[in-house]
């Protein structure tokens, strides 16, 4: 009973705050609405018995939305939301597409014959996840690790102001490079 009440409260909050993300004019409010929605997602995961993943989601989303708020202030057209303005395009077409997608998904969910539950939840799901990632799902873990490493490299390359063409000009064989702070021992 308590579980059902918590589920409904979290579900309604997640959907309502998800909708409000795209209705608020203020960027700060939109960020906090998204944070609330994703915290409710973390709460639902906790409710399903996945303690470790639920806590990871809650912690990650809190930090992620803090960063998101900074970038919103930097890049948004109207960060404070003091002048109401529409930042939407093709609203009707998108509404039709999204309603169709939801209707199709809901129809599939309600009509599908879901198989019976196989097995029982382990006493320690976190241990089960760790054993899986270090065993049969090792390839997934390695791929995720490589993807995260590639992300670090690519974000640094994309974010840095100076690229190789700024250092060498059009002829990449030119030496020395035009560095603002020369490297090496002679610095």
């Amino acid at each position, binding site marked *: 009973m308590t579980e059902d009440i918590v*589920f409904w409260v979290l*579900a309604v909050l997640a*959907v309502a705050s*998800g909708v409000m*993300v*795209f209705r608020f004019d203020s960027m700060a409010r*939109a960020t906090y609405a*998204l944070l609330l*929605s*994703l915290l409710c*997602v973390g709460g*639902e*995961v906790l409710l*399903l*018995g*996945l303690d470790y*993943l639920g806590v990871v989601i809650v912690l*990650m989303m809190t930090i*992620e939305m803090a*960063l*998101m708020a900074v970038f*919103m202030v930097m*890049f*948004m*057209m109207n960060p404070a939301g003091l002048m109401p303005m529409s930042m*939407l395009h*093709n*609203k009707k*077409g*998108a*509404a039709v597409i*999204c309603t169709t*997608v*939801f209707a199709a*998904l*809901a129809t599939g*969910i*309600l009509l599908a014959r*879901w*198989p019976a*539950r*196989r097995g*029982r939840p*382990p006493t320690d*799901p976190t241990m089960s*996840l760790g*054993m*899986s*990632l270090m065993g049969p*799902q090792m390839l*997934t873990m390695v791929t*995720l690790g490589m*993807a*995260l490493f590639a*992300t*670090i490299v*690519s*974000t640094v390359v*994309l*974010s840095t102001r100076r690229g190789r063409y700024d250092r060498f000009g059009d002829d990449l064989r030119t030496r020395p490079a035009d560095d603002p702070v020369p490297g090496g021992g002679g610095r």
Partner: protein
Amino acid sequence: MSLDLLLLLAAALFSIGLFGALTQQSVVMLMMGLELMLGGVIVGAAAIWHFLTPDAADGQVLVVLAVTVMAVEMAVGFAVVTALFRTREVDTTDMAAELKR
């Protein structure tokens, strides 16, 4: 709480996120739509694990995958927005057709 209800919640979050990703002009708001869509994927994967295959950890691995994709999407998305703004002073999807100097 049942599998159907959790999957309907996941579908609702996915659809709302899709609406945001399709309609928003700002790249940062578009990324918020993608985050909501991935939130729906997380709820769906966790529900499938809990109600159908709790003995295998594959559903949990899918949640780990979705969480990682969220982190990667945000990091790369912000880096692309930074590069885009630096080179072309553009911060909306309508004005950003390609990344070129």
